[in-house]
C-alpha cells in the first residue's frame, strides 16, 4: 500500500509543479508548524490507511510536525465531546449529516465553506449536501459505502430465482425461499440499528426519499397513514416468515452465520458485510448484490453513510488542518485509500476511480445512476439522536411483535412531539 501512496504523492507533486489546481497555491511551499490529528479509524484496515495518509502528508511537508492519535471507533462516539472542548486537536473524524448537529450548534466545528467556495475541493460537489447544515459546510468526507441486498447467488441459482426489481418479485422470491425451508433475510437486531436500515429502505421505496427526510426532520407524524403503509409492507415480509427467528438476540455479525450456512439467503447491509462473508469462505460466485427493489413509483433513494474529517473550532493550526483536508479529499488520494486493499469503499471525489471489485463497481453504478431520489445517511444519522434511539427500539419491537404497531407508533409520535420543538 505504501507504494500506492508514493505514486499518489508523486502525482500530487506534479500537479503542484504544473500549477493547475488551486491546490498548488497553498502547497507550493511546504507547511511548517504543528498538526494534531485525532482519528477514530481504529480497525486494522482503516488504521493502516490513516497512518499511510499521515506518512505521505509528512513526506510532502518535511518540516511539519504531525502528531497522530488513534482512538477506538466505538469509544470515540462519546469521547469526541471531551476532546473538542479543551485543547482540541486540529483534525478529527466524525460522521456526516445530522450527526454533526450537536457540534455545529455548540460551535465546536469550524465552518469550512470557504474551502468549498474557494475551489480547494474540486470534485466534491456531489457530496457537499451531506456536509451542509444551516447553509454552511462543516467538514470534508473521505469515504462512503452503499447499502443494499447482499445475497447468496448459488442458492438463487439453485432455486431458479433472479434478482428482483419490484417488491412483488421480491415477495414472490421470498415465498420460494421460505418454501425451501430457509429464511429470506438474515438480520441481527440486538443492537437495533439493523432494523433502521430496513425501515429506511421500505419507507423510501413506499413514500419516496423526500417523505423520508420530512419524517426525519419531524415534519410528518408517525401516525400518518403513509407511515402505516410502510409498516404494512414490512409486515408482509414478517408474516410470511421472511426473517430469521430470534433475531433480537443476535448482533449483525452473529447473524452472518445464517447466511454463510445457507439458512438465510440475503442480508440488507452496508458494503462492509462483504469482507466478513469472504472471510467466512464464500467466494464471489456465491455472493452478489442487488439494489433494494421498487415499491411505489417514486425515484429511488439510497442509504450511503459517509465518514468525515472536521476541524474543531478550537484548533490551533487551522491552515495546516485545511491543507490536510484538501489532501485527503483530492482525487488521487481518494482512489488510493478507498481501493479494495485499503478501505474497500467508495471514493467521495467524482474524479477518482473506483477499484475493480464486483461490489464497489455495482454500488458506484447504483449510486451514480439509479439514486435519483437522493442519498440518505442512515436512520441513526438522519434522525436526531433521541428520535433515532426511541425509533429503532420501536422498529425492533415491530419486527418481533407486529401486532403492537399502534402502541409503537403512538410512542414514537409522543417522542416526536417532545423532541422537535
Amino acid at each position, binding site marked *: 500500500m505504501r507504494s500506492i501512496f508514493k505514486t499518489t504523492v508523486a502525482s500530487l507533486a506534479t500537479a503542484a509543479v504544473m500549477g493547475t489546481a488551486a491546490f498548488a497555491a497553498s502547497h507550493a511551499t511546504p507547511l511548517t508548524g504543528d498538526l494534531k490529528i485525532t482519528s477514530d479509524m481504529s480497525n486494522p484496515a482503516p488504521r493502516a490507511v490513516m497512518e499511510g495518509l499521515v506518512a505521505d502528508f509528512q513526506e510532502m511537508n518535511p518540516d511539519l510536525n504531525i502528531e497522530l492519535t488513534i482512538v477506538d471507533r466505538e469509544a470515540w*462516539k*462519546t469521547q469526541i*465531546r471531551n476532546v473538542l*472542548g479543551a485543547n482540541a486537536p486540529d483534525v478529527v473524524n466524525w460522521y456526516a449529516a445530522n450527526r454533526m448537529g*450537536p*457540534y455545529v*450548534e*455548540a460551535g*465546536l466545528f469550524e465552518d469550512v465553506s470557504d474551502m468549498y467556495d474557494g475551489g480547494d475541493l474540486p470534485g466534491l460537489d456531489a457530496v457537499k449536501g451531506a456536509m451542509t447544515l444551516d447553509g454552511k459546510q462543516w467538514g470534508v468526507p473521505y469515504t462512503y459505502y452503499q447499502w443494499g441486498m447482499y445475497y447468496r447467488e448459488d442458492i438463487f441459482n439453485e432455486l431458479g430465482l433472479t434478482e428482483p426489481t419490484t417488491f412483488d418479485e421480491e415477495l414472490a422470491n421470498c415465498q420460494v425461499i421460505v418454501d425451501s425451508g430457509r429464511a429470506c433475510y438474515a438480520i441481527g437486531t*440486538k*443492537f*437495533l440499528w439493523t432494523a433502521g436500515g430496513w425501515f429506511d429502505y421500505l419507507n423510501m421505496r413506499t413514500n419516496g426519499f423526500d417523505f423520508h427526510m420530512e419524517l426525519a426532520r419531524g415534519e410528518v407524524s408517525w401516525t400518518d397513514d403513509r407511515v402505516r403503509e410502510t409498516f404494512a409492507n414490512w409486515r408482509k415480509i414478517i408474516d410470511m416468515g421472511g426473517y430469521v*427467528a*430470534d433475531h*433480537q*438476540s443476535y448482533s449483525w455479525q452473529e447473524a452472518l452465520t445464517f447466511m454463510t450456512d445457507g439458512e438465510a439467503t440475503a442480508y440488507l447491509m452496508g458494503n462492509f458485510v462483504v469482507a466478513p462473508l469472504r472471510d467466512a469462505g464464500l467466494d464471489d460466485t456465491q455472493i452478489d448484490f442487488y439494489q433494494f427493489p421498487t415499491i411505489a413509483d417514486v425515484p429511488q433513494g439510497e442509504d450511503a453513510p459517509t465518514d468525515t474529517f472536521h476541524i474543531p473550532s478550537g484548533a490551533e493550526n487551522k491552515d495546516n488542518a485545511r491543507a490536510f483536508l484538501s489532501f485527503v479529499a483530492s482525487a488521487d488520494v481518494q482512489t488510493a485509500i478507498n481501493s479494495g486493499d485499503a478501505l474497500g469503499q467508495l471514493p467521495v471525489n467524482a474524479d477518482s476511480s473506483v477499484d475493480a471489485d464486483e461490489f464497489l463497481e455495482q454500488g458506484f453504478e447504483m449510486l451514480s445512476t439509479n439514486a435519483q431520489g437522493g442519498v440518505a445517511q442512515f436512520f*441513526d444519522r438522519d434522525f436526531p*439522536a*433521541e428520535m*433515532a*434511539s426511541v425509533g429503532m*427500539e*420501536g422498529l*425492533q*419491537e415491530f419486527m*418481533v411483535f407486529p401486532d403492537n404497531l399502534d402502541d409503537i407508533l403512538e*410512542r414514537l409520535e409522543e417522542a416526536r412531539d*417532545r423532541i422537535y420543538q
Partner: protein
Amino acid sequence: MSSVTTNASTANRGWYNRNEIAITPWLFLLPAMLFFAAYVIMPICQSFWISFHQWDGLGEKTWVGMANYERLLGLGDQRMDRKFETSFWNNLKWLVLYLLAIPMGLFIALFLNQTVRGIRLYKSLFFFPFVISQVVVGLVFSWLYLPREGLLNAVLAVFGAEPVNILGDPTMATYGIIAAGLWPQTAYCMILYLTGLNAVDPEQVEAARLDGAKGSKMLWYVILPQLKPATFIAFVVTIIGALRSFDLISVMTNGGPFGSTRVLSFYMFEESLSEFGFRMGYGAAIAVVLFFIMLGFIVYFLYSMWRDEKGAN
C-alpha cells in the same frame, strides 16, 4: 514537647496547644472530609442542580424547573415516562428476587460447614463464581441462553421441552439476567455465612442439643440468631448489588429487547452518557430519583446499626 508544655504556664501556651484536644480529631478527619465533600457531596448537589436544566453537556444549560421530573414521574397531566416505569418495576424485581441469594447462600454454607477431606477445595469451588468478573458471568449466561446453540435449550430438548429464547422474550429476559446475577451473589452470601458459622458458640449448640433441639428448630432458634451480623451484612451487600445491576444488563441484553430489561441505573446511563444520549438534565433527574430510593435503604441500615449499638451498650 511534653516537657515544654508541662513547664510552660497556661498563659504562655500557643493557641494550638491550648485547643489541641478539641482540634486534633478534626485535623485527622479533615482529609477524609475534604475528599468526601469533593467526590460525594458536591457531585450529588451538582446532579440536583443539573436535573432542573435541559443540557446536552456541551452548550449552555437552560433552566426548565421541574419539567424533567414532571415528564419522568408523570406529574400534572402528563403520562409517566414508560421507560422509567419499566425500569422502576425491573428494579423492584431485582431487589426482591436478588434476596434469594441469602437463603441459598445460607443453605450452601450449612452444607459446606463440615470437616471432610478436601473441604477447602469444595469451598473454593463454590466461591469461584464471585471471583470472576460480572462481565464474564454475563457472557457465560448469555451463551447458555442462546436460542439455538445454547446449553439450556440442549438440556430442555433432552426432556422434550420446546426451545426458549429467554433473553429475547421481554417477559422473561429480566428474570434470566437476575438468575445470572444470583450465581455470584449466592457465593458471596455463602462466604459471609461460612465466616459467621465459625463464630457460632459450640457450647450453646451443645446445650441446645442436651435440651433436645435438632433440625430446623436448632437452626431457627439457636444458629440463626447467632448469625444475625452475617445476615445483616449479606442483606446490605445484596440490596446494594441489586441496585447496581448495571454490568450484567449491559453485557447480556443492552437493555433490550425493546427496552424491557432496563433498570434505573441503566436508563440513567442511556439518557446521559450513551451514544444517543447526552440529555444530561433528564439523566440527572433519574439519578436523583435513584438516589432517594437508595437513601431509603441507607437510612434504614444506618438506623438498625445505630439501634444495635445502643442495645449493645
